[in-house]
């Protein structure tokens, strides 16, 4: 009886594994094909018979992509934007999360709700007035314009509030008795155990803002402030000619390549931090 049950279960598992494998392959094929076509010679048209890297693969598409758009500049911009946002966010969310977790002050529920509204009202729905605000502030077409709206993070504040709330109050009291002020307490008692949550937040903030498109599209105008996503989009909007797939795929890989490489190297940490961030 036991034996039969075991073998049935085993066969089912292999079947599932096989199906899973096919699915996983399907999930991976798009990026593999992109890679293959990016070294396809621009002198050969693509066809069913000529689908992958063609008869004489070349890296000229990459240099052509760099000729058309200053991707190096776009890289720098994207890194600056993403890091700039992250640094400010880390500061604001720790301060605000600490205040909401451990202080009692008048109007705190209303203020918390107001801040949480940011999570319920997506920034994409507010581009009309935000665009006008950027112009009014005179920062149109700057890296700053891309970063500004994200400096305050309701998601991060919420996350930190939850995380800080879970830290035993005895530690806080002990620090107070040792004469620590709020900053020292925050830094020494609250932040260290909140590391997993902070990392998870950092990763989600970085990937969100690295990949952001619509907002930077409308507030940047020149290569000096344009990030990678917008730069890539221009490559696909070359209206007078048709699609130059080897060129466009090369451009795409320029944009996602490093991201994927970093992700592949640090994937354990990436995924683990999401898993252990305590986001339930």
């Amino acid at each position: 009886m036991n034996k039969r049950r075991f073998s049935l279960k085993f066969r089912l598992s292999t079947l599932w594994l096989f199906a899973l494998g096919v699915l996983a392959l399907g999930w991976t094929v798009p990026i593999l094909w992109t890679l293959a076509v990016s070294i396809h010679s621009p002198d050969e048209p693509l066809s069913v018979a000529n689908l992958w890297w063609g008869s004489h693969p070349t890296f000229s598409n990459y240099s052509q992509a760099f000729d058309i758009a200053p991707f190096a500049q776009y890289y720098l911009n994207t890194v600056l934007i993403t890091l700039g946002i992250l640094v400010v966010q880390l500061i604001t969310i720790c301060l605000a999360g600490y205040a909401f977790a451990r202080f009692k002050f008048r109007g705190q529920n209303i203020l918390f709700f107001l801040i949480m509204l940011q999570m319920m009202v997506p920034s994409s729905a507010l581009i009309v007035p935000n665009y006008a605000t950027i112009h009014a502030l005179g920062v149109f077409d700057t890296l700053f314009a891309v970063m500004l709206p994200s400096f305050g993070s309701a998601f991060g504040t919420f996350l930190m509030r939850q995380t800080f709330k879970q830290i035993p109050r005895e530690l806080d009291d002990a620090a107070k008795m040792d004469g620590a002020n709020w900053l020292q307490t925050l830094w020494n008692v609250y932040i260290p155990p909140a590391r997993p949550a902070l990392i998870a937040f950092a990763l989600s903030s970085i990937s969100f803002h690295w990949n952001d498109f619509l907002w930077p599209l409308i507030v940047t105008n020149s290569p000096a402030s344009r990030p990678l996503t917008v730069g890539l989009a221009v490559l696909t909007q070359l209206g007078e000619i048709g699609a130059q797939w080897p060129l466009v795929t090369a451009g795409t890989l320029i944009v996602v390549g490093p991201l994927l490489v970093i992700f592949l190297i640090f994937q354990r940490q990436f995924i683990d931090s999401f898993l252990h961030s305590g986001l339930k």
Partner: protein
Amino acid sequence: MMRRPPNGAAALPYLLILPTLFFVVVFTLWPLIRVIYDSLFVENQAVQVPQFAGLENFLALFMSSAFRDVLYNTLIYVVITVPASTLFALSLALMLNREFKTRGLFRLAFFYPSMLPMVSAATIFLFMYTPGYGLINVFLSFFGVADQNWLGTPSLALPALMILGIWKQTGFYMIFFLAGLQGLPHDIFESARLDGASTLQSIRYITMPLLMGTTLFVTTIAVVNAFETVDQVYIMTSGGPVNSTSMLLFNMYETLFNYLDIGKASAMSVILIAMLLIFTTINFINTERNATYE
């Protein structure tokens, strides 16, 4: 014991939340009021100085068949991709929660698309959907399916975008479900198995209810994400063919930036916000009710 700061430092908590509050006020709360205000005015290329018009913008939108199509497309997209990707993500998480050697690789394969910018994913899929040599058609031809003009056929274009959306987001939701599953106590499953429950039964009666919190969280993100679809429309279809992929946020972008109709674009923003607020408030209340804190 909550801190009760000495009188002089009573302002401390307010100062601590001030930076966050400042940015939220300037870039979320004030614009929210502003966009509602602007939606009550007509302001476009013909009427450059705003004129008060009450609910005229909203009426014009709802009476326009093009906008009704937009609402319809958006709702269809949400109603199909959210359950599909959530269920898919949950199934994947269940399967990949078991211990086996290559499970890390599988997780990677499904998760990496969510690391890509949507414009890159859209560019890749724009290529994949090409009639003739696009990989999707080549793959389907092995099953005898005729060549399809995915992005040029009104009935296929939106499904094409949906497939892209599911491909991109499922892995991300899967991770959240994995996290949820890992937090489940093992002993319940042990006793269930001893009682003779099948895998399917334990999933249905134990796992699912315990994962309610995660499920609600994932569906909320998924819905907001679906409503915000714009990058792939911009890259792949520009709303076509015949407006079959015109979605709310993209249409709003077009209305503002191509037609310079600030009044209508603001009205669309209000509609989008209203739809999202209703949904997320319901979800938020539910989650808070079901959640437990230490």
